[in-house]
């Protein structure tokens, strides 16, 4: 037990010595790190978006409505609306019926040919 305690104490001494002698970062490594930092500096990349200030009208409009994601949503909603208009699902009420018009087959019993025949018979 005493040996173990002594060994652990000696280990603590080694840890303390190692902490006091932290290895120095070589100059060339510091230089390489700072070169990387300069290359990755956000300001150097933010210069590119500033050049995009001169944009075509369609891109300005796209950004005005919220950029490409918003434009994509707008296009999807428009396509869905058009499709529902062309081929409404069964649960969607017929807009023609809602407007108060009835089916043409019940209100117009005859086509123009039949009407002409009836009129000609009346004249005879």
């Amino acid at each position, binding site marked *: 037990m005493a040996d*173990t305690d*002594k*060994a*652990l104490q*000696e*280990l603590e*001494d*080694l*840890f303390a*010595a*190692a*902490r006091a*002698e*932290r*290895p*120095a*970062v*070589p100059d060339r*490594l*510091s230089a*390489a*790190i*700072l070169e*990387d*930092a*300069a290359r*990755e*500096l*956000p*300001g*150097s990349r*933010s210069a590119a978006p500033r050049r995009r200030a001169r944009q075509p009208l369609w891109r300005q409009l796209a950004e005005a409505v919220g950029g490409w994601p918003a434009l994509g949503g707008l296009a999807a909603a428009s396509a869905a609306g058009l499709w529902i208009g062309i081929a409404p699902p069964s649960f969607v009420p017929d807009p023609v019926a809602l407007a108060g018009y009835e089916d043409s087959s019940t209100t117009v019993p005859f086509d123009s040919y039949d009407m002409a025949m009836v009129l000609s018979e009346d004249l005879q």
Partner: protein
Amino acid sequence: MRAAAEEASDDALLVLYANGDGRAAAELTARLSPRVFGVAMRVMGNRAEAEDVTQEAMLRLWKMAPEWRTGEAQLSTWLYRVAMNLCIDRKRRARGGHVDLDAVPEPPDPARSAAEEMQEGARHDALQAALMQLPERQRQAVVLRHLEELSNPEIAGIMDISVEAVESLTARGKRALAAGLAGRREELGYSDG
């Protein structure tokens, strides 16, 4: 600027860097790179590898700067974590694939002889040689706890394990180190005590 930079927190300096202030990078490099390099040296046991790990970890810091959220985590903890993962990746690559780093000890001969050849006789080199005998995760935990003097919860965050697992790794690591160093007591100047 220099005096102001020295007083600023790591977080504040990274925000300055993210806003395009290149001078903040110099202060961050002076503060953080010695810590990363020190840990990488102890964990890798090889200067060239430690330099590569340090440069790569700092590069990831620069790239991450615009996304850093101040106050959510400690910058040094994040950086230690990146460095430790880089060390593990390099060890794995050196072994040619996946291995359980908790189970497999270091190959004894090359590491020990390399350390001995480089700096024979000095106590911290004996410590390094003994560290290289530990399994990877034990070595990381011991280095972070006893050489970097980080708290167990911080080490748990860095290594992505529980505090209990950190305690277990450091305890086992210390016992193994003590046993490994026992045979070198005369060499280390402890023979008369």
